[in-house]
């Protein structure tokens, strides 16, 4: 009964977000996110149908649809990057570098795993593969959020909601899959309900943040005497040097 309530509530909330997205013209601003959402609605319906009437093929349907949403999830992250850093080309380059660093780390880890004699792909179960791909997504989102925070990038309520919701979903997925890979099926049960409840929370967050379209706040224009980047860096370092000298002078014997 509880499973059905969660299932139907999820589908209902997803439908509300989609309808609000259409009415508020949010679809054109966040196409990847709405594609993801619509795909999730279809996936939920397909899973609901197979769970009740074709239980034998449910695991097969579950894992296949899970990878579909995983691939579309990558598009959502790419959209966060594109929309969030639209007016900040330099910061976008910084984020790109960080993303490459994350991919290089994952690639290095994959090579290190395959180098111990066991083929990486053979050693992977569907669950492990999903965990690893979710970690790549989580790593990318970490890099993006770190750049947003470090450079105080102004974000719209819509984008903040998308990031928060997808981030919570990714974080709980990483936790769940990591512990399930480590402990096995013993971990299932209560966690399944917890994850579903968390997903409902994410959907409520999306309903609230995507009710209307909102533009990103415009950053206050920075007027500096030297608009050149190299001069700006030199200016900052000069300020640091002054502080450093003051600190040094203060404690010099």
């Amino acid at each position, binding site marked *: 009964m509880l499973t059905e309530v969660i299932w139907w509530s999820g589908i209902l909330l997803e439908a509300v977000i989609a309808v609000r997205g259409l009415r508020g013209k949010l679809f054109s601003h966040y196409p990847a996110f709405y594609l993801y959402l619509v795909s999730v609605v279809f996936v939920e319906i397909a899973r609901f149908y197979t769970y009740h009437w074709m239980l034998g093929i449910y695991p097969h349907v579950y894992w296949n649809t899970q990878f579909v949403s995983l691939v579309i999830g990558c598009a959502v992250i790419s959209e966060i990057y594109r929309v969030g850093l639209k007016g900040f080309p330099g910061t976008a380059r910084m984020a790109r570098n960080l993303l490459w660093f994350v991919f290089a780390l994952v690639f290095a880890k994959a090579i290190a795993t395959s180098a111990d004699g066991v083929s990486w792909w053979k050693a992977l179960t569907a669950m492990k593969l999903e965990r690893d791909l979710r970690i790549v997504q989580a790593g990318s989102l970490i890099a993006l959020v770190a750049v947003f925070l470090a450079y*105080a990038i102004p974000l719209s309520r819509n984008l903040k909601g998308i990031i928060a919701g997808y981030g919570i979903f990714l974080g709980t997925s990483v936790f769940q899959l*990591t512990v399930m890979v480590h402990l096995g099926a013993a971990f299932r049960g209560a966690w399944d309900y917890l994850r579903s409840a968390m997903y409902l929370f994410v959907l409520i967050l999306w309903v609230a943040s995507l009710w209307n379209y909102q533009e990103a706040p415009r950053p206050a224009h*920075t007027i500096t*005497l030297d608009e050149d980047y190299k001069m700006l*860096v030199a200016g900052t370092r000069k300020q640091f040097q002054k502080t450093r000298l003051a600190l040094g002078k203060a*404690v010099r014997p």
Partner: protein
Amino acid sequence: MIAFYACLGVGMTLFVLLFFLGAGQAPDDGGAEPLDLAGERRAASCPPEIVQRVFSPQDSEYVARVGTPRLERFYLSERRRVALNWIRRTSTELSQVMQAHVRAARAKQDLNPATEAKVFLQYLRLRCLCGLLLIATLVVRPSSLQELAIYASELSRQLASGERGFERVARAVPTRVHSGT
């Protein structure tokens, strides 16, 4: 087991960053102030002679010579309060410089990730130095920071050699005065 904790660490880091993102960003007005003018204000905030005096052992030696425990206690608490205030203020000013920098740098077309990393590292080292000074002032007398001074001068020497390279680059670019677009 390391992989297990690393995976959980990724999830945890994501939650922490999302918390900071949700906690809200500072009002977007810090960068509106020209860096050079801000520098003049900072330089005037506390004359170096006074700061040097706060940390110098001269007054401490004088109070010790007077030999009144009550005066010594009063002197120590007052001196410590002034020193802590100065360190906190310096730390805040460092944050303001960094904030002004990132707000001005974020829209630059030619933003260089390696240079940004160096600036951030320099900022981090100075913040660490402030933290170290703060702890040292709380633990020992402000006038007994000679060991820290050795570290500070060593750090200062290292930073100065790095900065010379930057100044050469900066000098090569002609200064432009305009309102910007």
